[in-house]
């Protein structure tokens, strides 16, 4: 197999890591929403925690994405 092709395949595989991050962020926002509809008065105070959790989860996806770009452009 050509090295060039392998590189593209590798970059594609590396970005698969974003799937997990996508699921994670979706879970966080979904659970926040279901909690917020049950107790809307407590939702406002948890906004910072929501963003924090989403950011921490998303970081892993971003890591995979950057890795993919690194493979693609190296």
């Amino acid at each position, binding site marked *: 197999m050509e090295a060039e092709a392998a590189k593209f395949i590798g970059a594609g595989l590396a970005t698969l890591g974003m799937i997990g991050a996508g699921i994670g962020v979706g879970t966080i926002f979904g659970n926040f929403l279901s909690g917020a509809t049950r107790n809307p008065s407590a939702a406002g105070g948890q906004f*910072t925690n929501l*963003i*924090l959790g989403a*950011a*921490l989860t*998303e*970081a892993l996806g*971003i*890591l995979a*994405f*950057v890795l993919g*770009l690194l493979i693609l*452009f190296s």
Partner: protein
Amino acid sequence: MASPMEQFEIHKGLQLPTVELPGGLLVDLSLNNSIMAMLIAAGLVIVFFEITTRRAAVVPGRMQLMAEGLFSYIDDMAEGIIGHESRKYFPYVFSIFLFVLSMNMLGLFLAFTATSQLAVTATLALMTFLLVLVIGFARNGHNMYKLFVPAGVPWYMLILVTPIELISFVLRPVTLALRLFGNMLGGHVALKVFAGFVFSLASLGAVGVVGAVLPLAGVVALTSLEFLVAFLQAFVFAVLTCVYLNDVVNLGHHH
């Protein structure tokens, strides 16, 4: 057609002398587009705050209300996370937030996003990390080890917990830098790729021009999403700075 990565290339502008730092490092101080973006971003923040707070009154005007809104938003956030000692660290958090926000937002107007340069985000992250370390050692001294040894955890769990805590602590600046960098990079690459679709579809002829409406709508939608991301990432950077500061400021006693 130009690569979507072209937007991140640095072009040298005004030539300035190369200085030698104490460590023997040679640093080329020439201005380039990244430095210009930073200068404009910081300048905009300073001008904005100078205009809005020059005649700060108890009853705020329209402009002052904007500055106060930002101020209160971050102040409340910092106080909620750090507690009553947040006022000491608030200027740093607020400066970081405004600087990152300004650079992110400028990236959507100018052709260059300073926060999509790993050098910039890594410096900001390392600066925050070092600040946390300095404050931590200054306040807690040798008690800093408690950061990695959570209270009330049995010793056999500590064998597992301490390395994890240590690694996650050391990785903090890495994730902090990569999160901002990756978000900005990814967003702008996606924008450029979609814009490239518009161009290549439109060059196919009449059918292509009609079809190009789809990626064009995509670019518009993505741009609005990027505005959200630009704000959110600046906010996340500030929140995480507060969280890391809180770890060392309130070490041992949870409020």
